[in-house]
């Protein structure tokens, strides 16, 4: 399958569980971009070209989710690399992208702290959507 390059005009979504308070009082904190221990190749985001905000917000959390939006042009201007990674363990997903500069291997480094802080600032440029609570 073809991997479609990410355009400068695209927006990427990052889901934030409400229960974490990584988004509070209209401020997104760098914590929202911390790599998990299993994110070996980079933290995940989703392309607005292939996924709606509502779809990104679907999940099991009872308190629901916020969804932060980051413009690719803003990320690239800050020197942050984003890569399309549609080949996921759950199957092919054109919406899936990663920021390889933030990963499980460097999560306890200054580099990671600084990048998380930059991402939080970029994520504040566009409005945060939500909160969304999935009822099943």
């Amino acid at each position: 399958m073809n991997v479609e390059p990410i355009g400068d005009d695209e927006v990427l979504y990052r889901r934030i569980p409400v229960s974490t308070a990584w988004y509070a009082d209209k401020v997104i904190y760098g914590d929202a971009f911390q790599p998990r221990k299993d994110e070996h190749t980079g933290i995940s985001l989703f392309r607005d070209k292939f996924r709606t905000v509502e779809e990104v917000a679907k999940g099991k959390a009872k308190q629901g989710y916020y969804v932060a939006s980051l413009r690719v042009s803003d990320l690239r201007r800050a020197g942050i690399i984003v890569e399309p990674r549609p080949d996921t363990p759950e199957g092919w997903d054109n919406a899936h992208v990663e920021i390889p500069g933030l990963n499980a291997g460097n999560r306890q480094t200054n580099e990671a702290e600084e990048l998380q802080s930059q991402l939080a600032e970029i994520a504040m440029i566009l409005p945060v959507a939500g909160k969304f609570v999935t009822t099943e």
Partner: protein
Amino acid sequence: MSLLAEAEQTAAEQNTEITPRGRSVSSTKSDLATPATRQFGRQWQPVLDKLNLWWTDPEVFDDEDYERPSPNVVSKAIGWANALKEKDRPAPHRVVPDGSGGIIFERRSGIHSEKLHFWDDGKIEVIEMSGHKVIDRVRLI
């Protein structure tokens, strides 16, 4: 006093195991504030309430992607919160999970921030930032 200095002092002084719920924190040395002289005690109550809730009801983190703070880490954070409260240090502005089993205490002032990070692997670090730059980072344990 900066969070780093407070945390270093607290780390140096803590010489016994700290128990969960913080009711029997190991005693520290001579600089414990008396109830009459305490300024910041009340600030710590919401912090301790939150940590105790995480201890008693870990289900508050019900997201499938992230790992809740481990009992070990919650216990450690409660112990530290109690120790810093007893020494009448200002409480953090934020107490949040890190998504990988750890907990972060954070104080912010303008572009300056200080984090006390209880990592899932047992490590405790103080990370000081100015804007997007890490200006100091000290591993305590």
